[in-house]
């Protein structure tokens, strides 16, 4: 059993009366793309800052690469790259110079650094903007620069804190692809976000957080299996009598039926061919309907079932 890259045990962090992290536990293995998912204020950024030894904490322990992470753990810091939520670049330096500056804090060798900087720019797709100043870049390009500054030195462990906030779709795709590529090249990624679609897309393992607690942890599939809902069928209809709703409710694997806003919602737990059964019934009763949707559960559903809240409130 290899040492986990990050091991958090019983972490407690208070901001005065507010309990930001409540006996938080987490283990992240090497090579994972680990997602920290949760609504705003759940403690994702706080967790990250504690791991990075930027924030003090009240109880618990944190180990990175098997060693205690402290502000003066320079050897550990050398292997870590961070892309913060707020863009942290120098307005007076060009794209190239910014990346070079931050890379220079990690890599002393000039030739090697030059190579890394070129690779970083190519990686995020900013070569043609090499001599641009940050104020001339769009939001998406700025975020890409922010990322380049954080990963240019090719770290083993990379933290990305909400890297796609306010970013155009093109840049966002580029960023997500880039993260996957970094992982393929061997980096362990810790990705925090409240966009479940992104987390679902790239993360190998996910922890769902709320109010400083780790609610559920596992792969996508494992998380989805934790909840009752395995399928949601939605059918557009003008109207449906109450007794028919009760009938549908009694169909196999159906555990909830609702009719609202001209939409029939049928929630199923497990089983196969649920959609066929529902449609058969409607046909039998000669009820007309419009579009038909069958959706697998999302992480939002997982979150909703566990907490009773939406991820994006």
């Amino acid at each position, binding site marked *: 059993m290899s040492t986990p890259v990050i091991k958090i045990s019983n972490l407690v962090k208070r901001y005065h009366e507010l309990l930001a992290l409540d006996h938080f536990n987490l283990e992240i293995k090497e090579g994972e793309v680990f997602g920290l998912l949760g609504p705003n204020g759940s403690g994702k950024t706080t967790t990250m800052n504690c791991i990075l030894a930027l924030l003090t904490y009240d109880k618990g322990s944190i180990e990175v690469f098997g060693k205690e992470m402290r502000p003066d753990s320079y050897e550990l810091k050398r292997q870590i790259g961070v892309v913060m939520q707020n863009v942290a670049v120098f307005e007076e330096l060009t794209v190239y110079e910014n990346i070079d500056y931050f890379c220079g804090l990690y890599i*002393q060798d000039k030739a090697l650094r030059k190579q890394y900087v070129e690779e970083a720019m190519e990686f995020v797709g900013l070569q043609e903007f090499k001599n641009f100043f940050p104020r001339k870049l769009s939001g998406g390009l700025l975020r890409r620069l922010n990322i380049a500054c954080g990963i240019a030195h090719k770290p083993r462990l990379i933290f990305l804190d909400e890297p796609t906030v306010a970013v155009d779709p093109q840049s966002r795709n580029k960023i997500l692809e880039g993260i996957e590529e970094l992982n393929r090249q061997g980096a362990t990624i810790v990705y925090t976000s409240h966009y479940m679609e992104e987390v679902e897309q790239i993360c190998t393992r996910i922890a769902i957080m709320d109010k400083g607690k780790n609610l559920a942890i596992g792969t996508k599939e494992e998380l989805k299996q934790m909840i009752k809902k395995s399928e949601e069928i939605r059918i557009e209809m003008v109207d449906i009598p109450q007794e028919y709703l009760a009938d549908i409710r009694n169909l196999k694997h159906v555990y909830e039926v609702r009719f609202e806003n001209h939409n029939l919602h049928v929630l199923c737990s497990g089983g196969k061919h649920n959609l066929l059964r529902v449609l058969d019934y409607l046909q039998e009763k000669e009820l007309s309907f419009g579009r038909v949707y069958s959706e697998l559960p999302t992480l939002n559903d997982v979150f909703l079932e566990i907490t009773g809240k939406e991820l994006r409130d």
Partner: protein
Amino acid sequence: MFWHAFYYYLKSTLRQKENLCWTLLFPIALGTMFFVAFSGLSDEESLHTIPVAAVVKEEDIALKSVLDTLGEAGEDQFLEVTYASEEEALDLLQNKEIIGILHGGSPVTLSVNAQMDNMQMEQSILSAFVDQYNAIFDGIKNVAMTNPEKVEAVIRGLSEETDYNKEITYTDGTMDEMVSYFFNLIAMTCLYASMTGLKIAIRNQANLSALGARRTLSPTHRLISILGEITACILFQTVIVWISLFYLGVILKVNFGSQTGYMMLASLVGCMFGISFGFFVGCIGKMEEAIKVGILMVLTMFNCFLSGLMVHSMRIQVEKICPWYNKINPAALISDSFYALSVFQSHDRYFGNLATLFAMAVCLCVAGFFIVRREKYATL
């Protein structure tokens, strides 16, 4: 790491064109205004004709004769005499049309207006003239009574050119008081560098900026990169002050003396203090930047004020009331260094001031480092 931080700090500073403009404009524009304001300042040694009223009787022939001579129109006219009655003379005095009233008699007496304090120079000169007149009058009287044959020789002697009292100076440098305003202007410019020191502190602290957080997470010891930035900052600000010195000394021809090298060194140490001070203030507490700027600005202006920027004799007042403050007031130390260069031959006082400034700068820097050394925060 040090040179890496040094290089990039310098690069980014030189690119802040607006900042550069203002930093350079300030001493040059203000220096020019000072220069214009002080040009042609009334030379207190050169006397303008002094208007007086003379209340004389028939028998005051000698006085009248002297007044007529001194009141003769021409380049060296000493007095402008109006003969009047007592009432007329008092009227003129009340309306401030004359400096004083000379009353004939033995001895001659003088009346001045108590509310004309601003004319004390002229009043003193009149007073001295009256004393001199009386003394000579007495003298001639005494000689006439005792050795009347010598009277002619005495009068001849009085009309001869004399140079009894020669003024010398112990120093080659200028003792022009107005130059001290320029010294204080240089001091203010050095202390204004504290703003850049403040910025360095803020952008290096994780709880104050995202850039600070990023720096903290790097394996480079923060203190090394901060030191690199501070060094670059000192270099930059010092060059600004040197340019100002050049402008004031060479273009405006303000008499700073000839010890250019020492002046440049004083500027360097002055900037060092300014930046360290700004850095220290930037490191303390989590106040908004605007408040810290406010603190720096008022402290700078207050110190410059006490050093004599606005009224140059303020320094002397401080010297009398709490002399120890002049020894730690950075503005006073900087301007005093310049003053010492222009007045004294030996450099003892100059080096003393610089040593104090340097020591204070180092202490402030170290104190700032100690505060900022902590890289973990309770909140970010």
